[in-house]
């Protein structure tokens, strides 16, 4: 099948205490712990969204990445295709700890609801009013082949006009996000070589 040309419209990396967009560092902070880092990023970008503080770490990470990329985005039909390695294990462990307590097990609904990796896409959809396709995949590592095939199909079939794709992983205090928007016009060609190169950017 001959595919129409699609492009990487913009991309964002959140790792090692930095938030960057299209290769330019927008924010850096030397907080060692993720919760402090992401909170200061939230303040830096002047995000006014009190629900942010109710989110788990994975959702906060994905939410901030989407904030950077979708803040000026006017395309309503933007699909979300995200992936990671650890699923929602960070929150799963919290729920497990709560129900394993000897002194009395009390599951917290506010924790349990985040024991699914796709919840972070729900948060992004609510924030940006996206009534679009959502899929969450788990891989051992960033898999540009699956993400690009899948994004192309959503665009070709008309299910979406743009696709926010990427990798958002949070596990044992380590965080790594690489999000990008695929569109009909953009700065870089949409192919696996380009995606791999951008993902590996230090």
């Amino acid at each position: 099948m001959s595919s129409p040309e699609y492009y990487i419209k913009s991309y964002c990396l959140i790792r090692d205490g930095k938030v960057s967009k299209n290769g330019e560092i927008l924010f850096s902070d030397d907080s060692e712990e993720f919760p402090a880092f992401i909170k200061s990023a939230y303040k830096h970008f002047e995000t006014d969204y009190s629900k942010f503080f109710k989110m788990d770490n994975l959702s906060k990470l994905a939410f901030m990445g989407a904030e950077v990329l979708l803040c000026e985005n006017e395309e309503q039909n933007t699909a979300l295709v995200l992936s990671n390695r650890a699923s929602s294990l960070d929150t799963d462990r919290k729920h497990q700890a709560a129900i394993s307590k000897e002194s009395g097990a009390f599951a917290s609904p506010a924790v349990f609801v985040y024991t699914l990796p796709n919840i972070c896409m729900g948060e992004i959809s609510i924030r940006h009013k996206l009534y679009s396709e959502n899929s969450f995949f788990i891989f051992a590592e960033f898999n540009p082949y699956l993400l690009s095939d899948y994004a192309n199909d959503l665009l070709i079939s008309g299910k979406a006009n743009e696709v926010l794709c990427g990798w958002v992983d949070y596990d044992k205090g380590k965080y790594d996000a690489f999000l990008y928007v695929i569109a009909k016009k953009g700065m870089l060609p949409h192919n696996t070589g380009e995606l791999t190169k951008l993902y590996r950017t230090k």
Partner: protein
Amino acid sequence: MSELKQELKEKIIEQLNLEDVSVDEIANDDPLFGEGLGLDSIDALELIVMLDKDYGIRLADPKEGRKIFESIDTMAAYIAANRTN
């Protein structure tokens, strides 16, 4: 009673992650849901767990929560009347 109310405000802020709210900003008769503090359905479930965990009150019907959680006043009155620990 006023001690219990103070305690409830602190717990609500802490457990429901109300980042930008301080104890002084919550009036005893402020509505907790909707307009007031803007709590939602997950918060309501979390308050049901709090009643059970911290005050030994198990609601027979979760729908009862709607009346109990109207404000700090109603919550404190209900807890004072029904607490088992």
